[in-house]
């Protein structure tokens, strides 16, 4: 199963604005297993930045350095985080790698080396994020590596996928690579221009996955309550494909910037709650996480996605910006050369 989606939310560019859910909302969730939530919250407190970080993070549109992801109908929660919003991309990469104690596979190490080479010529935007989730009572960590804009990723990408590129007119660009040391898997994340419904199947065929684009389209139509006749109705979309350790494609995810698909966060929240409750999904955690603050502001949403795992029913996902914990483990010299020295 794919981890929480994470991408360049551009928060730093947009100078923040909007609201993030409070970290205590994460601790107070009732739907997920209490132990799991406690373990996740503790890990976030340990690895994440403290509220004292001054710079807005690029992780989320609102500038928050944390992002919680909910997946339906499966229970559970994932968090992506920017360990040091004040630091440079290189520092952030080192920080994230240090936080992941487990060794990476040889293939994954090659990928990291390749990305490091790309970063030499092209500085990139953020460098890396860290992903956290609890599975079977264990804390799992995932490294998300920024693919710098302008680097030559095409050959590597075609080798990883094992099939030539498709849809040359849809501005498809590799933007991020996810590495899970426990599974040994690699996940490729792409941004693209506006896609048409049949083109999701074109992408799925390239990854040798079943043609299930109609499920994505139906979900989008349900969320937007509009008929999808032509382009998918998002102005900022992308997709990812997760490969297992043997290099087989296992999970395809279509995602959209939540605002670009559903508008402001209150509308995104209303749409997700409506569709979720119609589908009978457990919405309590998300409802609690995205609850408006005292000023009536719904936390900014990052992404909305549809996950198609090989041999499994469709799942949906959404991410919500999360404020850093007020009293995190003190960390030294966030902006200096090493977050986790």
């Amino acid at each position, binding site marked *: 199963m794919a981890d929480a989606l994470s991408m360049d939310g551009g928060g730093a560019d947009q100078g923040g604005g909007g609201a993030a859910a409070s970290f205590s909302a994460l601790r107070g969730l009732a739907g997920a297993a209490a132990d799991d939530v406690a373990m996740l919250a503790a890990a976030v407190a340990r690895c994440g930045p403290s509220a004292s970080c001054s710079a807005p993070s690029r992780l989320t549109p609102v500038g928050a350095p944390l992002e919680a992801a909910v997946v339906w109908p499966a229970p559970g929660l994932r968090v992506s985080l920017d360990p040091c919003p004040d630091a440079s991309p290189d520092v952030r990469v080192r920080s994230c790698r240090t936080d992941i104690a487990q060794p990476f596979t040889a293939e994954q190490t090659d990928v990291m080396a390749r990305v490091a080479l790309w970063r030499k010529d092209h500085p990139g935007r953020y460098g890396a994020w860290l992903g956290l989730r609890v599975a079977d009572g264990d804390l799992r960590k995932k490294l998300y590596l920024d693919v710098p804009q302008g680097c030559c990723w095409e050959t590597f990408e075609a080798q990883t996928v094992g099939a030539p590129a498709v849809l040359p007119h849809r501005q498809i660009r590799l933007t991020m690579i996810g590495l899970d040391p426990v599974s040994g898997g690699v996940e490729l994340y792409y941004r693209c*221009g506006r896609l048409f419904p049949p083109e999701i199947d074109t992408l799925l065929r390239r990854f040798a996955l079943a043609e299930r684009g109609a499920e994505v389209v139906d979900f989008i139509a349900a969320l937007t*309550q509009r008929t999808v006749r032509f382009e998918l109705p998002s102005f900022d979309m992308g997709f990812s494909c997760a490969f297992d350790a043997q290099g087989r494609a296992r999970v395809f995810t279509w995602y959209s910037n939540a*605002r*670009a*698909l559903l508008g402001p966060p*209150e*509308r995104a929240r209303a749409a997700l709650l409506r569709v979720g409750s119609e589908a009978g999904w457990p919405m309590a955690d998300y409802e609690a996480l995205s609850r408006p603050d005292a000023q009536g502001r719904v936390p900014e949403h990052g992404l909305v996605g549809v996950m198609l795992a090989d041999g499994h029913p469709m799942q949906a996902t959404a991410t919500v910006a999360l404020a850093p914990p007020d009293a995190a483990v003190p960390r030294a010299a966030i902006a200096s050369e090493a977050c986790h020295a």
Partner: protein
Amino acid sequence: MFDITTVREIDYGPNSVVYVYQDHDNPKLWYMVPVPTLRTLNGAPAFSITEYTRNGGGISGLCTFEMELVQPLAARQAAEQVLGDDISWGGFTWVGGTAYFYYDIEGETEVLAVEPTLYGTNVAAFQIPLETPEALNTFKAAYSEGGGASPFRIEYDMQVLTKLLGAKATVKYVAEAAIHYEKTYKTVRDTWGNQKQVLQDVKQVLQQSGAGEVHVEIGAGSSQELEQRVRDWGWTTLENQVANTVAAAATMATGPNPVSATTSFEQTYSEDTVIDWSTPVSSFMRKFSTEEWNKLFIEVDNRKLSVVFNLIGQLTRTDNGDAVAESVTVTVDYPTRTTGNTFVLIVSDGAQSSMIYEAPGDFPGGSYNAEFTYSYVIQFKDGTSFQSDPVTTTDTLINITPNVFGTRQVSFIGQSIPFLTGSPPKGTVKAVNIDFFFAPPSGSPAIVQTKTMTDNGENGAVLFESFYNLPIGQAYSYRLRYQMSDNSEVISQPPGALSSAPDNTNSGNADIVFVKDPKGLFTQFTLRAFNYTNQNQDLLLVDVNAQYFDPANDPNGWLYENTWSNWQPTGLLSFAEPRWNFEAVDNTNSAYYNIAGTIFYSDGSDFTLANYKQSSEYKTLTITNTIENYSVLVDTTLIDWTKVASVNLTMFQLKKTAKEELGDTLPDFFTKPREEMTSEERATAAGSQDNLLLFSILSPAGTPQVDDLNRYYGVQRLRDDPLVEFYYTAVYVMKSDGEQRTLTDQKVEGKLSVELPALPPTTVKPGIVRHSIEPEALAAHMRVAG
């Protein structure tokens, strides 16, 4: 009439879907929404790409093609398998539409919009100059790789009249959200301003900002699917309305951001309302086989002249369906083709209503000559003909519209007017008198026609139609006079045609006017401020009181009032809060705002808004640290309405750069209405005119005598420019013979008012009146006004 609640989706092949609707009364009659298809002419695709190998005259190549809407045989067969083979097929009567070509060059999506013919197969001819080698190669790659779909697609957004059944819909635009979004995410925009080009941006802003709202309430027994279809229609309707609003703001607004000059609106469509249902259809164009490609791709040394000639609009009579003329014979004069330069277009025959005319390029002195001259002869059914004057232009798309045939057909359809009798909703309107006017050909009497509407929908529709065998102008104007049960009268008159159709794409389609409930129009007025950087002073404090007057409906004084006290503008762009909202009669032609107050600047100076008056068509007052606002009284009381049927007054200012470029001599074409300008002239006018406003003044009718009302025009003076200058043109149409008289070139000094004369002199060269007011005269005026 088809029933929107019966829509069915029919699959007829891989990724091929059509929509069908059942007739409201005849269950065996169905309508199919047709599919865009590349035309075939003489057995070959109507498509070509030309590469200029040596001398492209500034471009690398050209792509031309023609599309049409057809009902694929396979789709019919698939539908009949589902619906039964004993059904028959009806045809939609299109009332408007636009065809769009979406293509990408170097990752950038481009859109080209054209108007299809509204009869036959709705042919739309496209011509795309391929400016660079990259563009040419992109097009070659898109169409030449053999089989399958190209990456480029065609969309037709067609409208057809029907009833909103089983649901009620409200569309709402929240300007504040759009403005906030624009400020937050996109501070620079340059694509607003043309209605059709802005539509994509409008869709994005409405969706992402939350500025668009569509609420649908379905009736008992209606399906979720209907709810979604109505919501789809509501969004399309809202997007078009917002696009119009933004385009109008761009035409009139001062300041760099037209979106910030838009104001909120809301419109509710109740069940049974007659609406223009939109049926967008789209398909990818196909790639060509090698054999086809070898015929369709041409390499030539030099650029050629290529011009699309189109007959568009409603060219059949609404009463009997006959074509309004037989044919149009077009002659093109261009140096390289002096024989065989005449061709015939057949009126209302979709297969012969357009022509892509080509000639070898002319290169005098080595440069490409884009200029050609065309004229045409219309052959009417009664044996008469009309020979046009020659027109010299570089336009590559020539639309021949119904008005050149002397045809005017405009339907007024009531939408939920609360009539005393007739169909619901029931209410207090006895009848609506519609005063309708357009300038006839010279020699024909010009009268304001009046007809009465007593019911909503198509049964109560009121049609104004005239058929002259001589050209008439594009514009028409009208005034609605609602007769209320208490014997009072409510007047509703829109602004001139220029403002309501600011893109002026020579539309032949704007032939349906929806008439609504006269009262309760949600009106929002916005006070905004720009504080430009690097100026000698900033705006510090604004104290303003605004009053809304509508003397046509209530001559006794102001109707609504609002005050903004001690407002301190901040940043580059800010708004005085809260916005001023009220409900009024939709009467933008003569209602106005009276604004009084003081603006204080950081250098200690101040400026008094001394009973500044602004047309209610313009619902935003812009205050900046670089301009001062003054109003101009337009006195209409001298007009001799015993001889004059209508006056069209166009007022404008010049941009600073245009003043420097043009000096005292403005181009002659500034005296023409925008819709009669060539596209080059329109571009020049749009690039040099500012603060454009058109008043359409009809001779008085009914009681009270409403159209001797004064109008007001707000002008801006640059603070570092001592002079206030503005310009106007006026066209009088005489009752007796339709003669159009104009004012001649004049300079008026020291007057911040316009007195329209009783009658313009006969036979003068159309001209422009220029007003300039020196600072002393302005100060004197301010003393009196204040």
